[in-house]
């Protein structure tokens, strides 16, 4: 049996899809190309009970393609779900979002609001906190990081804490960190969770050819690691076929810089 060729983006997408495996009947929201592809892949493989929207105003019983999609007419609508109703869903906890923050700190707090400077005059204004505060206290969240670096996994706290994490110092009266539900972090180097001591971020698998040290060198804080850390599972032929069907224009190839292969060639290993 030959191993199919696959890209790092496809490896990451399959790893990300597993975040939704055991969710049951929740709304899966992947923000960005690969998280959306991952949620769609999960709905078509490991968890057919997932719910998904058309990113506009309907819940679908079958995910739309993420590229080469001519228009919303004829899609598999299940019910109307405008943005106001999204919040009814969010606050009911029946949702799992996968998002791509600009910064993540050791508590799992995340930032998409602004970078540097002062709050009155940030060096870089990003999007704003968007739905991060409400998502993070209401339902499960996972993170997708296309470039694992110290700039994303910052040494201190995030410049703006847009989402709540496992930081007891920020909890108001009556709350416990156990009410926060952070799941997986998928990066271009590894998969992590918050399963270390006191919800410490923990390496759970390394992508083919990536070393533990490389992950540590690119992370601004200490990480736990599982015993006998495995290699992230390669996509199956079936998973690759479904991703190709969901993304006929192959926009997944443009999401990770230079679209590297899923298994690093030996030359790069020595550089690492």
């Amino acid at each position: 049996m030959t191993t199919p060729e696959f890209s790092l983006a496809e490896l990451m997408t399959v790893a990300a899809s597993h975040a939704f495996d055991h969710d049951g009947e929740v709304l899966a929201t992947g923000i960005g190309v690969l998280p959306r592809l991952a949620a769609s892949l999960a709905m078509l493989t490991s968890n057919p009970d997932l719910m998904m929207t058309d990113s506009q105003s309907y819940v679908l019983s079958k995910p739309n393609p993420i590229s080469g999609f001519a228009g919303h007419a004829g899609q598999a609508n299940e019910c109307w779900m405008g943005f106001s109703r999204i919040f009814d869903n969010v606050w009911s906890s029946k949702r799992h979002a996968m998002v791509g923050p600009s910064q993540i700190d050791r508590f799992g707090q995340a930032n998409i609001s602004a970078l540097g400077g002062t709050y009155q005059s940030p060096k870089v204004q990003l999007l704003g906190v968007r739905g991060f505060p409400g998502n993070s206290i209401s339902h499960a969240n996972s993170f997708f990081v296309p470039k694992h670096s110290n700039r994303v996994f910052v040494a201190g706290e995030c410049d703006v804490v847009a989402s709540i994490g496992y930081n007891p110092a920020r909890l108001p009266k009556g709350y416990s960190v156990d009410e926060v539900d952070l799941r997986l972090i998928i990066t271009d180097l590894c998969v992590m969770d918050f399963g270390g001591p006191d919800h410490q971020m923990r390496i759970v698998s390394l992508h083919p050819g990536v070393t533990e040290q490389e992950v540590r060198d690119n992370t601004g804080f200490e990480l736990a690691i599982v015993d006998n850390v495995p290699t992230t599972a390669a996509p199956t032929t079936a998973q690759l076929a479904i991703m190709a069907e969901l993304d006929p224009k192959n926009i997944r190839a443009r999401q990770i810089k230079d679209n590297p292969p899923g298994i690093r060639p030996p030359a790069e290993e020595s550089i690492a």
Partner: protein
Amino acid sequence: MEDEGQSFAPDTLRLITNNEYWGTKTMDKVQTPADAIAAIRDGMTIGIGGWGPRRKPMALIRELLRSDVKELTVVAYGGADVGMLCAAGKVKKVIFAFVSLDFMPLEPGFRAARESGAIDVMEIDEGLMLLGLRAAAWGVPFIPTAVGIGTDVVNHNPDIKLIDSPYDDKAWLAMPALKLDVALIQASHCDRRGVCSIESPDHYMDDWFARAAAHTIVACESIVEGSYFNDPEKARQVFWERAVTQSVVVTPGGAHPSSNDPSYGFDVAHFGVYAKHVAEGTFDAYRTQVIGDSEADYIDAVGGIDAIHALSLPVY
């Protein structure tokens, strides 16, 4: 004996429901953009419907840009509406969860205003904004929620308080009512009495903006007869009652460069032109040359109403 009911009812009922018989008229809320915008004065808090680059009442924003109004507080799920008002120096404070054009994640006018420290902000969660509008609509001072706890939404907004609950031992965030002096909304069709339909796939939070405001101005693509809404399918596209709307403005193509599904999509190229003006510090030229002195000038400058209607609908 004739049936009294039959002989009495039909004609007389028609008479007593006929306003001409009583010398009264139904309200006519249709105004010019300039007359409508005259309701907005310096220092007011305005709410703007729509979402990012989608279904923004841009013709009303352009009319504001042509006016002398300043020192506004703006509440919005923001796009170029917020960005252009910031670029024109009309904004004191923005209450926002995001300001974005989706395909262009960072809205240029807003970004420049933030990074130069020119504006005050109240940065809140998207859902907190919804709760604040609902509180204003319902006439309550706040709505309790867990949304925002543990984040910088609390730390950066001293006006947002945590409170004790009479029913449990937890702290709750008390999202204050976001009372609006004026709401600006982009609809599809309106009748002269202010019945407004939104035929787009989503009316977003526009019903709450309308209800949170003391005065609601609705821009539409066309005026229809009241009987248009007799069709139950059309009546289902009306998300607030006419008593909530005080002013109706007819501005065909007026959501441009944002979308007004199903009439037209958003104009990526035009957003690019606007972004370039902001980047080069020439927003004044955009204001005078593109926005011009009237909405007719603007529609001409962007190639006419047919060019707007030719913009394809977004696919997500």
